[in-house]
């Protein structure tokens, strides 16, 4: 495996966004970026004022459902779309009006967009040739890059002679060989099957560590984002709902949308009926109680609480002590190999999903129709949309 140095000296003379190295300047900055599209005379606002900054060397993901504006946001960073308003800066230099061929970022397209009439070598060398890099250096760098992505020996192949995974690697090599300040990846693993996708996720992470380049990764696959990212911006309907590291996003979702989009989540609502010290209690039906950490709650306040399915335990009787305790009836048990999934219908009619590790024996703790109690620790309850969660 070749280590490639993160040398910048050989970059094109015309590239914008390549000032002297200043680590304190963010690699990419978006400030109040808005994008309107006109469709049949109607203005559609695809991106509604997005601001964030991405640090040098960071693996940053834009995560959201299709149509949330994540791809448009990325295309504005690449220069393919012009923001309606707002500014985009690369390393402190405003590039909002700079065309894509003069921006020092490169993109990996969802369809790979490999040039079908060129072989692997010509594809990868394309960017360096445009920048008039001397021929011996092109040969050296393309060779190195093909070694990193494991395609040495396939130089003369046409893209259509390669498998999906190999095409993906060529697309990656073609972008990375230019040593861009940031690499933009638009759902690059979407076309691969599950096994290959998981393998490529680790591969991407390894390559990113090796070359030390900022990665901006667009995906609708939450597990992909959680696996690879340093930070994730969850987008919905043209706006960023939450920007945090994967653990924070998963454990402490800022909005109901984030809670439901990332993993499986149970959403319970009720009113605060008691506060004792740092713990608030929410009554749920006649017999149920949900305990919740964190101050700032008022008596009688309406709250929405999320709790992750794997944090909940199923018990035959009512638990004692400072834990949440909610009664219900098991309505469905699904065996999923590494864990069992239970659907429990609460007294009020709400349905709660519980995951239980398949650690002990093949039969689960409860069967369909059993009356059970659900229990979890106060710090696993997380109130959203209230003052304390923001």
């Amino acid at each position, binding site marked *: 495996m070749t280590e490639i140095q993160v040398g910048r000296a050989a970059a094109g003379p015309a590239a914008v966004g390549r000032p002297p190295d200043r680590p304190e300047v963010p690699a990419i900055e978006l400030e109040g970026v808005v994008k309107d599209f006109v469709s049949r005379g109607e203005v559609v606002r695809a991106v509604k004022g997005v601001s964030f900054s991405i640090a040098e060397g960071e693996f940053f993901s834009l995560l959201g459902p299709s149509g949330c504006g994540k791809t448009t946001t990325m295309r504005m960073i*690449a220069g393919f779309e012009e923001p309606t308003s707002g500014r985009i800066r690369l390393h402190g230099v405003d590039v909002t009006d700079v065309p894509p061929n003069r921006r020092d970022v490169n993109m990996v397209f969802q369809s790979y967009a*490999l040039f079908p009439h060129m072989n692997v070598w010509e594809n990868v060398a394309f960017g360096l040739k445009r920048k008039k890099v001397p021929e011996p250096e092109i040969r050296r760098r393309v060779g190195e890059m093909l070694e990193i992505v494991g395609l040495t020996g396939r130089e003369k192949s046409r893209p259509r002679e390669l498998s999906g995974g190999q095409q993906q690697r060529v697309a990656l090599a073609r972008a990375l060989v230019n040593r861009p300040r940031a690499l933009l990846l638009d759902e690059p693993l979407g076309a691969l099957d599950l096994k290959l996708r998981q393998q490529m996720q680790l591969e991407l992470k390894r390559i990113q560590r090796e070359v030390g380049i900022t990665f901006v990764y667009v995906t609708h696959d939450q597990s992909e984002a959680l696996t690879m990212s340093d930070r994730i911006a969850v987008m919905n309907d043209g706006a960023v709902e939450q920007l945090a590291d994967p653990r924070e996003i998963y454990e402490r979702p800022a909005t109901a949308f984030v809670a439901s989009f990332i993993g499986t989540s149970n959403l319970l609502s009720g009113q605060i009926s008691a506060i004792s010290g740092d713990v608030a209690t929410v009554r749920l039906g006649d017999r149920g109680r949900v305990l919740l950490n964190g101050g700032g709650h008022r008596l009688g306040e309406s709250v929405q609480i999320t709790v992750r399915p794997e944090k909940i335990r199923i018990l035959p009787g009512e638990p004692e002590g400072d834990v949440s305790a909610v009664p219900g009836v098991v309505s469905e048990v699904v065996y999923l190999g590494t864990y069992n999934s239970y659907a429990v219908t609460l007294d009020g009619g709400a349905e709660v999903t519980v995951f239980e590790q398949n650690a002990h024996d093949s039969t689960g703790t409860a069967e369909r129709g059993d009356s059970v109690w659900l229990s979890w620790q106060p710090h696993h309850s997380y109130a959203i949309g209230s003052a304390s969660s923001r």
Partner: protein
Amino acid sequence: MNTLEQAAAGTTARRRPRRRGAFFRGRLLHIWTWLVITWLFLPIAVMILFGFNDTRGRYNQTWQGFTLRWYAELFAIDDLTVALVNSLLIALLTMLIAGVLGTLIGLALGRYRFRGSGLMKLVMFAAISCAEIIMGASLLSMFVTLAVPLGFWTTVIAHVMFSVSFVAVTVRARVMVVDRSLEEAARDLGASGWETFRLVTFPMIFPGVLAGSLLAFALSIDDFVITNFVSGGTVTFPLWIYGATRVGIPPQVNVMGTLIFGVGVLIAVLNAFGGRRR
């Protein structure tokens, strides 16, 4: 076929539910296909054959023995040679001019929506579907009104006019299926607008450009109706043949027809092989 394969084939044949007439239907399609091919090819075969006819009189209609004389005396009739050269020149010019203009129109229509693009598409299809006799007559009255002397160049203008739509439509169809992100990828990798066109767009649409241009050549070289209106004193290959029908068509015409057809077949074969490689 080895015995194992025979056995396997036998099994599948036996397993397949017997449908009455399935065998006959398959054969019928075969016969029908060959009938159609014969129907299309017979006139061409006759043309080629009579290029080898050792005819003595003015009429080349009855078989009188094999000769290669007409190939040797291909350019013996001066007027016919001039007409053929005219036709080839006009067809080449038409191919080049309509090829360039049609490619630009096809690119614009396939890539962009602009004010008037709908009207442009309509005009393209109108030009394709318009009856030649009407187009010829109106072109003639236009040239007369504008006092343009009829001849070689009015013929070229007319041919470009009616064949450019075919090029544009062919190129547009090709442009529509080229992945747009290829051009974006080229831009992203530092290519200027012109470099993107030269290195990515044009190679991608080239099959369409080639097909459209060859179509323009083929349409031009055998056009009679429009040419008859606008050519003035310039005689083209089809016009000369039409004139010769009254006094008898010499076998050289068959030979020239055969050669033109042969070049066409050669290009089609090359295209088929090139297409498979691409």
